[in-house]
Structure formats: structure tokens, C-alpha cells
């Protein structure tokens, strides 16, 4: 008895406040987005805003239940929960209802459940449990592989549905791995791959590769503090490259600048090999490997983009990058979204007065594009506040995670941060065109039972763990 009173006392009130605030604001915005004159009452249960109220009430109940359950439960049953959700992810591929070409939902009577939303916290639990048993061993391959496996399994199952948005969310768990000791090289490589992907599409490959060579040169100078050595390295590359370029253009049949660069780098690498071996210059080796890897990667991206991506996915990326303008077709969502948000100006048009919202120009406005309502009706001020709230929530959660004495709780906390951050950044980023259109909900804000409950459970397990952080050492 005394303990449970303590729990309520120790729950982080700031986070709970943010949680309630976001749900309520989301609810009001859904009302505005779906506003139907014939059903003006916000509690009209035939409309989405009425239903969202029910989901919110249920979420609060869920939150209470999650908090009441003993925190050891989460540790002991993490694998069980994970197993159940993975099975559900498999089952949904066979028994799920097909919507827009994807099988992501179970239909139980009038209730729809989306297992991928719940798989997120399950994965966080399983990952936390596994790493808890292998503390500080993430530098070893025999630990990295299973950890990656825990993440990849639900990711691939979700990709099969197909639900690209959720798949990307699972990949964000690599943040957790990084925090717990995975080599920063892998992490940085991952980020680099994403950035290079877009740069490759945006600019000429050869130019990009030359820029990278230049960058490598400066990095070498910075790391070794030997300008002469770095210049010598650069000189070798230019020399080899120059000879090959001349050969290519004037002597033999042209094989293209891209191949020239690759061959140049490989030959230059051979030239460097001796020096690196002698002096054990691991810094230079790393820089070189990154350079070569990037160049090869750039070529692969081109190939993959043109040959492996499906046409509608290619189109979405092209539209996001501005190559294609298709305001009535694939670019429709983004275009409408930009118009909607942009038209909000500094202070917005006022609650329930958004014309784009009212006239239903933005599709999926109560779910994936809910941020448009904020942008249009509350303007930059509103957008700023929402982004600020999420930023505040994320930083707060990191602070809570860091203050955990139990490794399990900390890892789980970072899992929560990764998931929420990814949803937040991709959702809002998509509405303003810095991320291609990938449908995922804005946590606590978007319409939808499964996603709201998934996030609620995700968050409150952590709050529960945090509340009892001084008690047992898990």
C-alpha cells in the first residue's frame, strides 16, 4: 500500500503533463481537421473526433494499468511480450485485412488493431533485456549480431506488409545500440549512408566524389597534423587520376569518369598501403576506407534507385527532392500539405478557420498529416510550440534515462526516445517536404487507437521503471 502511493508520487509529472497536453491538443486538432458541419458536437461518436475521445480515455486507463503493474514484470516478461508481438506480426501477413495494398491491420468486429504499433515497445523491452545481460559487450560480434537480429526481425516483418514507415522506426533502435557501446563507426556510417543517398540523387556523382576526396584530404591533415604528408597523399591521387583520365579520353575506349575515380582510389590505396602498414596509421586507414566505401556506395545508390526501388517509391523521393512536380498525382499530398501549412503565416488563421482544412484539400488530415492543421490554424507560433514540446519531451526522457541506476531501464528509456524521435521527425518532416512522404503517425497527436495505445504503453512502462528507480536494482 505504502509502495503504490510512493509510485504515484514518484512518477515524473512533467512527462505525464506533456502526455496529457499532447493528447488533448491532438484531439482538438482532429476536430478541426475532420470538422463536419452536420456533426458539430465534439463528442459525436460517429465522427473521428468522438472516437478519438474514447481512445484517449482508454489510453489513460491503459497508462494507469501499466503504472500499477510491478516493474519487475516488465523485465521478466520482456521476451514473452516480444515473442507474442512477433507472432502477431507474422499472423497479420496472412490474416490481416488488406488496405491500400498492405496487410497491417487485424479486424476484430468493428475494432482494428495494428500489431506493428505494439511491436515497438515489445522490441524496446527485448532489446533492453538482452543488452542488460550482456552489459558493455556491444563491441563483440557475438553480441552485436543477436542485438541486430532483435531489431531486424520485426523490421523485416513490417517491411513485408509493406509498411515502410514502421520499418524505418525499427531501424532507429540503432540509436540505442550506439548509446550502449556499439562502435561509433557503424553508427556514423549509417548516418552517412542516409545523407549520401540524398546527395547522390541531388548532385552529379563525379562532383560529389571529388568533393569527398577533398574532404578526406582535409580530414587527414586534421588528424595527422602533417600537411606535407596529406599533400603527398592528395598528390598521388591526382597523379594517378590524371594519368587514367588522359588514357581514358585519348588512348583507350572511354569507360567513364565514375570508373576512373574508383580505379584511381584503389591504386592510390595500394600506394598508401605500405606507409599505413609501416606506421600503423590507423587514422589514415579509417579515412581512406570511408572514402573508398563512400564512392562505391554512391555508385550503388544510383543502381539501386533506378533498378530496385518501385516506381511509386522513386517518384516520392523525386518529388521530395523537387525533381518532379506532380500536384495532382503523387505530389498531391505534399503539395497540399505545404499549401496548408504555409498559408498559416505567422500566427495562423485561427481555430476552425483553416480554409485548406475546411475544404478537405489535404488527404489523411486526421492521421499522417495532422500537423497541417496545426500549421494552418496556429501558424508558425503553433508549429514552433509543437516542435518545442516534442523536443522538450525527448530531452526530458533522455534525462530520465540517464538517471536510471538500472541498465535495463536506461536502455529501455533510450528505446522510447528513438521511437518517439523517429515518428516526430519523419511525420513533421514529411509534411514540410524535407523527408519523402512516408506514412507514420505523430505520437499522441494523430488519430488512431492502435498508435495512441502503443505509444502510451511505450511511454508509461518507462515512467513506471523510472518511478521505481531507487528500489530494486534490476
Amino acid at each position, binding site marked *: 500500500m505504502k509502495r503504490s502511493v510512493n509510485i504515484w508520487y514518484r512518477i515524473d509529472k512533467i512527462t505525464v503533463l506533456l502526455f496529457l497536453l499532447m493528447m488533448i491538443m491532438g484531439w482538438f486538432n482532429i476536430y478541426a481537421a475532420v470538422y463536419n*458541419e452536420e456533426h458539430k458536437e465534439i463528442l459525436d461518436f460517429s465522427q473521428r473526433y468522438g472516437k478519438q475521445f474514447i481512445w484517449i480515455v482508454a489510453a489513460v486507463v491503459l497508462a494507469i494499468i501499466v503504472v500499477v503493474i510491478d516493474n519487475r514484470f516488465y523485465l521478466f516478461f520482456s521476451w514473452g511480450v516480444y515473442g507474442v508481438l512477433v507472432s502477431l506480426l507474422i499472423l497479420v501477413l496472412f490474416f490481416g485485412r488488406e488496405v491500400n495494398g498492405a496487410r497491417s491491420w487485424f479486424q476484430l468486429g468493428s475494432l482494428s488493431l495494428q500489431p506493428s504499433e505494439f511491436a515497438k515497445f515489445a522490441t524496446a523491452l527485448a532489446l533492453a533485456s538482452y543488452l542488460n545481460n550482456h*552489459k*558493455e559487450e556491444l563491441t563483440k560480434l557475438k553480441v552485436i549480431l543477436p542485438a541486430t537480429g532483435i531489431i531486424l526481425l520485426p523490421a523485416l516483418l513490417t517491411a513485408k506488409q509493406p509498411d515502410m514507415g514502421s520499418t524505418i522506426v525499427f531501424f532507429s533502435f540503432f*540509436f540505442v545500440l*550506439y*548509446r*550502449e*557501446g556499439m562502435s*561509433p563507426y557503424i553508427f556514423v556510417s549509417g548516418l552517412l549512408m542516409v545523407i549520401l543517398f540524398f546527395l547522390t540523387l541531388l548532385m552529379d556523382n563525379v562532383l560529389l566524389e571529388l568533393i569527398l576526396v577533398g574532404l578526406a584530404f582535409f580530414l587527414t591533415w586534421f588528424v595527422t597534423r602533417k600537411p606535407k604528408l596529406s599533400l603527398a597523399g592528395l598528390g598521388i591521387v591526382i597523379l594517378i587520376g590524371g594519368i587514367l583520365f588522359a588514357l581514358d579520353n585519348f588512348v583507350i575506349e572511354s569507360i567513364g569518369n565514375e570508373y576512373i575515380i574508383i580505379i584511381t582510389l584503389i591504386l592510390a590505396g595500394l600506394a598508401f598501403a605500405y606507409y599505413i602498414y609501416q606506421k600503423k596509421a590507423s587514422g589514415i586507414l579509417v579515412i581512406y576506407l570511408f572514402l573508398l566505401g563512400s564512392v562505391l556506395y554512391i555508385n550503388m545508390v544510383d543502381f539501386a534507385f533506378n533498378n530496385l526501388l518501385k516506381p511509386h517509391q522513386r517518384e516520392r523521393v523525386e518529388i521530395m527532392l523537387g525533381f518532379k*512536380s*506532380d*500536384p*495532382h498525382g503523387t505530389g498531391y499530398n505534399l*503539395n497540399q500539405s*505545404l*499549401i496548408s*501549412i*504555409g*498559408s*498559416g*503565416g*505567422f500566427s495562423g*488563421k485561427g481555430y476552425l478557420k483553416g*480554409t*485548406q482544412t*475546411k*475544404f*478537405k*484539400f489535404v488527404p489523411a488530415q486526421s492521421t499522417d498529416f495532422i500537423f497541417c492543421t496545426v*500549421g494552418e490554424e496556429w*501558424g*508558425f507560433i503553433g*508549429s*514552433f510550440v509543437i*516542435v*518545442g514540446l*516534442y*523536443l522538450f519531451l*525527448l*530531452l526530458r526522457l*533522455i534525462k530520465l534515462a*540517464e538517471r536510471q*541506476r*538500472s*541498465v535495463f531501464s*536506461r536502455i529501455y528509456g*533510450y528505446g522510447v*526516445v528513438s521511437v518517439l*524521435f523517429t515518428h516526430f*521527425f519523419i511525420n*513533421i*518532416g514529411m509534411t*514540410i*517536404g*524535407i523527408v519523402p512522404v512516408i506514412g507514420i503517425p505523430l505520437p499522441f497527436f494523430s488519430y488512431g487507437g492502435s498508435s495512441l495505445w502503443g505509444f502510451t504503453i511505450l511511454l508509461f512502462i518507462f515512467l513506471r521503471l523510472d518511478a521505481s528507480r531507487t528500489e530494486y536494482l534490476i
Partner: protein
Amino acid sequence: MKDLYSTRKYLIITIIVIASVALIIKLFIIQVVKDTYRLSADNNVLRYVTQYPARGLIYDRNEELIVYNQAAYDLMVIPAQTSKMDTALFCGDLGITREIFMDRLKAAVNYSRRAPSIFLKQISAESYARFQEKIFMFPGFYVQPRTLRKYSRPVAAHLLGYVSEADEAQIKKDPYYKPGDYIGKLGIEEAYEKELRGTKGVKIFLVDVYSRIKGSYANGLMDTVAVQGNDIISGIDLDLQEYGEKLMQNKTGSIVAIEPSTGEILSLVSSPCFDPELLVGRVRSENYARLSADTLLPLFNRAFMASYPPGSTFKPVNGLIALQEKVIVPSTTFGCSRGYLFVGCHSHASPLNLKGAIMNSCNAYFCQTFRKVLENPGYGSISEAYEKWRSYLTEFGFGKKLETEFVNELPGLIPPSTYFDRYHGINGWKALTVISLAIGQGEIGTTPLQMANMTAAIANRGYYFTPHIVKSIGNEQRIDKRFTMKHQISIDSANFEEIVLGMEAAVNGGAGATARIAAMEDIIVCGKTGTAQNPHGEDHSVFIAFAPKDKPVIAIAVYVENSGFGATYAAPVASLMIEKYIKREIGESSKWKEQRMLELNLINRTAQNETER
């Protein structure tokens, strides 16, 4: 617990903060800095005006225009944008009553308050002009320009098809179409819909509360241009088509004329015909209902949706098969005692060889020939021999669809041997059981299109191209590959020559020739008469022909329903069509034929048959 990596939180925090700042910056740019998306304080609204592309035009083979577009205007309304206005003035200008106004407005509100509905379809150009001046007085209403089809001559309705609004099923199937969009139905309009329709564009306007256009949104950056539909050149000869429809007036039946060297359809007449203009625009629904209810079935395309037993016009093909199977040679003769066994024949010279049999259309000759084909000892059973016979027919395109552009082609009927097996038991039937097939009667059905195609194959001495209505599409003059594929028939062209001689004799052979009426002075016409038996009334008059005998340019099949012997009506029609096509003018000596056909009225006879059925 010791935590080796606690400093890593800084990188993660940095990434999150940078990402959030990036979002804020972009938001700042699009919300505060850029004017592009901002709408003014007047609460301007965006109006998406679909740019409908001009539908592709259709030309005839001589590049004479058959179908083109005329401008039409739909009056649109967005109920949420309407407000108090002078309805009396409005109704007066547009010529509608107040009741109609209220009804239409209610319907629009029911559909959607916010999305535009069509208030009045296809108002006249004058109404449009008058209305545009006063548009500021009627907030919420605006005009959407459209195009409608117009026809240079009131012919070829069946071939061309028509254009109507897409229905729910079509919209669901292809979301390119929105309610109110037009889509082709039947004929060329349907078969080549994707080519003709072009691509819609959109212009986005800023519109104020008075429904006035204030300007282009984003300086037209988001607008897309409508792409015009591709023009189509059809193989139709418009003069010939018009002439054919005129000849067939007051009669029911069909004419199919093909150019043998390419398979292009020169003319396709199904009578009764109707003016394609009837199915354009506002009057379409009403006229369509009327045409549907007409007992003579004018909407029914008799050229390929009707299957008849071909009658004597089938004899040339049977002759060809017999020659190829080597059961007869051209000099083979058979006697005819006013018939053979239970099959009757008219009186003529006897015995006859192959050429004579075709010329005189002798039933006995062909019955005995057919018998020889089926009883060929080279095959183990009658089923085998029959199937071989049937396989030749399949090569001619019988018993299956020819795969033209039309969707509702009938395949016709050449029953497989299993059909007779089931009816009579295996090996329970003989040549004599199915002897009627020899003269194109009994369990056999062919469409006029198939007959014309067969004639083209004979004209070519052994091959045909799939009949098609379209000569080329668009500027690149494309055409579907399947229409340039030659279908070779496995019968020697030498055998074809013999049959051609017979068909030449049928027209030009003098006394006894059944089709003398089709002869022309300076062109050698080859043909075959036929009388298709009709269990419900008068037999149908059938005639197939091609001309000139060497280097033929036209192959034709004519069906005149309920009119008796082939020679009487179908043959003159065919010869007139041939003369019109080759000489462009009807000569003095043929004028009497023309006169007779124009005046012939068999509608009552047909109507009688219809009610008797």
C-alpha cells in the same frame, strides 16, 4: 553500475536538437518568409480548374475529318461559397425555372457543400457569354469549359462509338476519371480511349469571396498543362460508308468491306443506322433510351454481333479444303438431279466441274465433295476427318473471335466433333448426318465480318491480316503489332486460283451464273451468292465479292435480312459499293441498280419477323 559510454548521450542529444532546429527553420521559411503559400487576409480560396484536353480527332483513310470537337460549357457551383443573390435574374439568363434551380442546388448540397458540382450541363455559348459578364453577381457559381464531339457527316455511328460520362464502376477501376468526366463507349471511342483522351491538366486560381478570379496561384508554378489526345486515322472511306448506309436504308442487315492487302476496314455498315449526333451532349440520355427501345435494334451492330449460317457463300471454302485434301481436282464432276439425296438444288446444267459448280451454286456438287472430305480413308474416323476440316476453318478465322478492336465480337460457331459425338454418340454419326454443313447450313454460324475476312483471304490467294478499323495513331503513326501480322492459311495458292476462277465465273460467266447482276464492264468482279436460311421468316440475302480479280483492292460481304435470294438484293448492293469505291462515281449503266436498292423498303417485313419471334 559503471557506465562507460555516458558521454555518448551528447551526440544523441545533438542530433535530436539539430533535427528539431532544421524543422523549425524550414517551417519558418515556408510560413513566414515565403509568400508562395500564404493567402491574403480576404480569406481567398483556391480553385482547381481542371484543364480538359481536346479529345483526339478521328479521320478517314483519305484524311478527311470524321469526328472533331466543339466547345461546351458546364455551369458549376460550390454551395459553401454561395450567398444571397438575384435568383430571378439568374434563372432568366439561363432559361430555367426557379424549381429547377432549387432542385439542382439541393442536389449539389447533398453531394458536397465544399466540392464543386455540375449545376447545369453544357450551356450554350451565348448563355456562357452572357453569364460571364454577370458572374460577380452570383457567388459560388463558375463555368467549366468542356469539349463535345461533333460529326462531319451523320454516318458511321456504330464504328465511331460515342462519348458519355464515366459511370461509378469505371471511375472505381481507373481513378483518372472523376464524376462528370467523359469516357468513350463502343467503337473507336472506346477501343482507343487511352489514346484519344489525352491527359488532364490543372490550373489553380485564387478566388475571392465574390467568386472572382484574382490570379494564378503561385504564379502558375503548380499548374500542369493538358496534353491533347492523339488523333486517329481510321481505315474507313467516308464516302463509301455514307453510300453504304444510304443503300441500306429501310432495310436491316450489314455490309463489311475490307482492303485485302492490309486488313483495313473500308466500311462497316449495320442497318438500321442512326445519326451519331443523337448521342452527343444533353440529348444523349433521352435519345439513347429511345434507340434502346426500338424493336429493330439500331444499337445492335449486326456486322459482328450477329451470327448467321452463311449459306452458299460458304461453298468456296469447302471447295478449297477439298482441293487441298486432294479428294477432288478442278476437273472433277458430279451430277445433280435437282439435288443430291435429300438436299434440293435449283435447275442448271449438269454435270458440272468445280468452276461450274461455283458459278451455278450447285448444292449437289458440294454435298458430294464434302462427303468425300469427311469420308477420306486417310483418316481413321469421321471425327478425325471432321476435325481436320474444322482446323482449316479456324485458320480462316471462323469459330473464334478475330480480335479486332471491338470488344463485343461474336466468335461464331463451328461445332467441334465432340458436339456431334455427344448428340449422336461417338461414331454414331456420318457425313450424311452433317451434310448441310457442305452448303453452309445447319449447326454453323458466321458473322458478316468473318465472311468479309474470308473473302479477303481468298482475294489474297491464301492469307489475311486481322481486320482493323484504325490505320494509324498519333503523329508517330503507330499501330498495334497484331494488325501487321500475316495469317497464312495452309492451302496452296494454286488451289485458291481455281476457286477464284469459279467466283469469277459466278459473276461473269454468262448464262447460269448466279451473280450476273454484279458484273461490271471494265472491272472483273469475283463473287458468290448465298441465301442464309432464316427459321423465323424470309431468308437473308447474302453476297461476298472482291475486285478486281487480279490485284484486288476491296473484299466485301453484304447481308440483307429477310429479302430472299442472294442475287436479288445483296449482290447489287455489293457491286454498287465496289463501283463506288473503285470508280468513285456510279456510272449510268448502274444507275438502275442504285435506284432499285434505294427505293427498296423491307422494314415492314423485318418488323413482322420481330413480333413473330
